């Protein structure tokens, strides 16, 4: 009964979203606050209806109601409660409902936003209503998560055990909140194209209304991607964290476009310029989100993450993508002439640096799009099959980013309108020198000697030091009494701190990624109980192996000690190989020893026999130097986004923002 209530709430939400579209559009056309207000009410009601539907789905999973096809296919009575709940977004149907949930909740928050002019708000709420109508209709008609099974099976088929992991349980909500949060910037961009005038006062104000949504979505997406990478790192047991897998790329493209959007929006907000770019990027970011949904759910890609879904649904998603993005970009092409103008600026200026940033980030996103889709296109066109993997991305994408990283610290140093390139270089000379020194130290400290990795360290250090130089410059550190600098430091806006943290966090990430990739040491050996594996400076001893029983699995649990070969305290860690009888799958549970910034990463392999016939196991050990920074960096960046969101300047004009973060 309660499940039927969920299905009803879902259909109700679809109808309410359609009403939201109709009423808001009518309110806009007739200039009727009553109609537009009713449209906003419908948006709120739609959000409530989807929240109720989701609550029903979660309760069906929590109670293991196997008469619901989705629960039967993805859950099992033996699963721990956390993973029963998380299974509600572990399947195609459930995650699509999560998508709709984020879209309608953000839509409801948009309807509550204060300070937007009547026409713009009515149009934006209407567009958002149109988007949620399409996706809710897709859910209702092709992917109903509440479909019943008759007769109900006694037991469920269980969730893929790889997905039974705390990081993965919370990764999809963050990722989707980020992905779909960009639907609001999309709607605001379309509304601005409808309402926008070529007057200089409109675009700065629009930039300020749009930016909090972009910031919130970007921060959530950053956390979502980092959690996903962390899951891949310690659950797959391959020692890596990013594989340039098509589905990873699908999440990275909106992130890059969203990053470009944030920077372009700054120029629009402060100087009224680049309005065309900002609108274009707002449309592009959510288009990439929808493209990602299509790639993951249509079965066109082979990936570890893809949902096995029939091509028919993929075709429908492609139709939604074509319709929404097609209309939006056609509107953009038509209205682009009104987007010109705004403050003029010299090539060397804050605006100029931000233009370069937008250029490189957009080119980076286009590169990833090309690398992800090219094998599909080539196969369709000529039948030839190729693979585009990490080496290709290292050759094409990485250089683009390195150039962008080299320019980055100079940007905030330049003044608006007309910057002083030589002055900026002088002020950054110390940071540049120290960064080169850091590269040299890295070259000397790490084995084997690698020039490229050392240069990478210099780039990471340059990002951090250059960003700190900019803060030191703002507070006039060492150019006056320290007390004055302290006072200035306290008076810096939260937005400034947000930018500083985001840029420094990027540097932290670069350092981690470069050192981990360049200097990781891998070793594997077949060892019996009491045997040892040596990786770099670490000695890992397999003390004993025991069979342990988990809630829904059985595991061979290896107890190991990790110690430095040159002495130091040994530490005990546990690594497991788990067997899940429900699905007949085996997973590895990595043993991680956190050593400062480094990880000692241990994977238990299959059981074997030594030549003497004793029991033995393949034990793989990685020494991943500075791996901590890879996940710390994005966390710092997301914190930067949060601080920027709290800036008083952005609080003007946007109400109920707390609701924007589900």
């Amino acid at each position, binding site marked *: 009964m309660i499940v039927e209530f969920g299905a009803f709430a879902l259909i109700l939400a679809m109808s309410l979203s359609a009403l939201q579209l109709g009423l808001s559009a009518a309110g806009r056309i007739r200039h009727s606050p009553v109609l537009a207000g009713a449209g906003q009410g419908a948006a709120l009601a739609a959000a409530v209806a989807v929240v109720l539907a989701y609550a029903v789905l979660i309760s069906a999973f929590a109670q293991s109601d196997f008469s619901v096809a989705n629960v039967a296919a993805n859950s099992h009575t033996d699963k721990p409660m956390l993973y029963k709940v998380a299974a509600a977004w572990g399947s195609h149907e459930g995650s699509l409902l999560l998508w709709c949930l984020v879209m309608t909740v953000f839509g409801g928050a948009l309807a509550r936003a204060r*300070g937007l*002019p009547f026409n713009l708000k009515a149009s934006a709420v209407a567009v958002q209503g149109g988007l949620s109508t399409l996706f809710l209709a897709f859910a209702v008609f092709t992917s109903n998560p509440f479909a019943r099974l008759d007769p109900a099976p006694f037991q469920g088929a269980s969730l893929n055990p790889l997905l039974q992991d705390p990081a993965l349980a919370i990764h999809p909500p963050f990722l989707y909140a980020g992905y779909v949060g960009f639907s609001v910037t999309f709607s605001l961009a379309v509304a601005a194209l409808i309402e926008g005038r070529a007057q200089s*006062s409109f675009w*700065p*104000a629009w930039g*300020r209304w749009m930016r909090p949504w972009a910031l919130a979505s970007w921060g959530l997406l950053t956390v979502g991607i980092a959690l996903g990478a962390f899951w891949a790192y310690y659950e797959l047991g*391959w020692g890596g964290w990013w*594989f340039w*897998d098509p589905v990873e790329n699908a999440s990275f493209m909106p992130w890059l476009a969203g990053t470009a959007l944030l920077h372009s929006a700054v120029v629009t*907000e*402060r*100087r009224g310029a680049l309005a065309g770019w900002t609108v274009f990027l707002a449309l592009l970011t959510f288009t990439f989100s929808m493209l990602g949904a299509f790639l993951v759910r249509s079965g066109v890609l*082979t*990936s570890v993450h*893809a949902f096995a879904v029939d091509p028919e649904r993929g075709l429908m998603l492609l139709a939604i993508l074509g319709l929404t993005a097609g209309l939006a970009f056609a509107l953009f092409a038509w209205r682009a002439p009104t987007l010109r103008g705004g*403050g*003029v*600026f*010299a090539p060397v200026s804050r605006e100029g640096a931000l233009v370069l940033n937008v*250029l490189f980030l957009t*080119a980076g996103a*286009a*590169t990833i799009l*090309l690398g992800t889709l090219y094998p599909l296109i*080539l196969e369709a066109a*000529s039948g*030839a*099959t*190729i*693979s*585009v*993997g*990490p*080496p*290709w991305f290292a050759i*094409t*994408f990485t250089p*683009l980013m390195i150039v962008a990283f080299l320019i980055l610290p100079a940007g905030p*140093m330049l*003044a*608006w*309108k*007309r910057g002083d390139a030589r002055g900026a270089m002088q002020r950054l000379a110390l940071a540049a020198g120290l960064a080169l020194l850091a590269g040299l130290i890295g070259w000397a400290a790490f084995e084997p000697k690698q020039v490229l990795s050392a240069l990478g360290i210099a780039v990471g250090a340059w990002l951090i030091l250059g960003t700190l130089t900019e803060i030191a*410059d*703002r507070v006039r550190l060492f150019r006056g009494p320290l007390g004055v600098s302290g006072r200035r430091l306290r008076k810096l806006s939260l937005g*400034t701190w947000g930018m500083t943290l985001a840029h420094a966090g990027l540097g932290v990430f670069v350092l981690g990624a470069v050192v981990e990739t360049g200097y990781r040491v*891998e070793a*594997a050996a077949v060892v019996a109980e009491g045997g040892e594996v040596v990786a770099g400076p670490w000695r890992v001893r397999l003390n004993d192996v025991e*069979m342990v*029983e988990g809630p829904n*699995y*059985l595991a*061979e649990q290896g107890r190991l000690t990790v110690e430095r070969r040159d002495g130091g305290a040994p530490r005990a860690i546990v690594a497991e190989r788990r*067997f899940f009888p429900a699905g*007949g799958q*085996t997973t590895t549970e990595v043993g991680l020893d956190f050593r400062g910034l480094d990880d000692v990463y241990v994977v238990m392999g*299959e*059981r*074997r026999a030594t030549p003497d016939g004793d029991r033995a196991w393949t034990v793989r050990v990685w020494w991943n130097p500075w791996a901590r920074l890879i996940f710390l960096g994005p966390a710092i960046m997301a914190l930067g986004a949060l601080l920027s969101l709290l800036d008083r300047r952005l609080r003007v*004009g946007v109400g109920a923002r707390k609701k924007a973060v589900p």
Partner: protein
Amino acid sequence: MKRALLIAVAALGLMAAEPAAPPDRPLADARQETRARALFTDIRCVVCQHESIADSPAGIAGDMRRLVREEIAAGQSDATIREDLVRRYGDFVLFRPPVRPGTWLLWFGPLTLVLLAAAGLVVAGRRRPPEVTALSAEEEGRLAELLREEAVCPDPDASSPNDGHADGSTIQA
């Protein structure tokens, strides 16, 4: 009883879940082994989903690793080994696609895009030179006077969100 049976089945499963490939035997020569490992990351496991043979636990990935090590030990160059793999499995096996007319767009597309965009920026910059005119002597004098009166210290980030524009009067706090 049922539980014991389950455990027995599961234990069997743990041992038999993957057809265990024979363990990897690293090459004795450290430099050859380094070369082999570098090659592994460029070669796709042909039965897996976007995994290199360096990462994949599949049996065939183990066979491919052994093949690569054998060829390196036999003194083959990296290029010959790649060619050999492509003969067996097709271009699909390489994570670095070959450069040929069909993949020119893939290889040179990103750089072309950046160059085109840069050219576009240069053209746009030429077409619209920044309108900066020097102040007249009279204006300079007024500016100096104003600065003296205001006694402001120019902050690099003092620009308000709306500098140079009509105020954002449409916003209600």
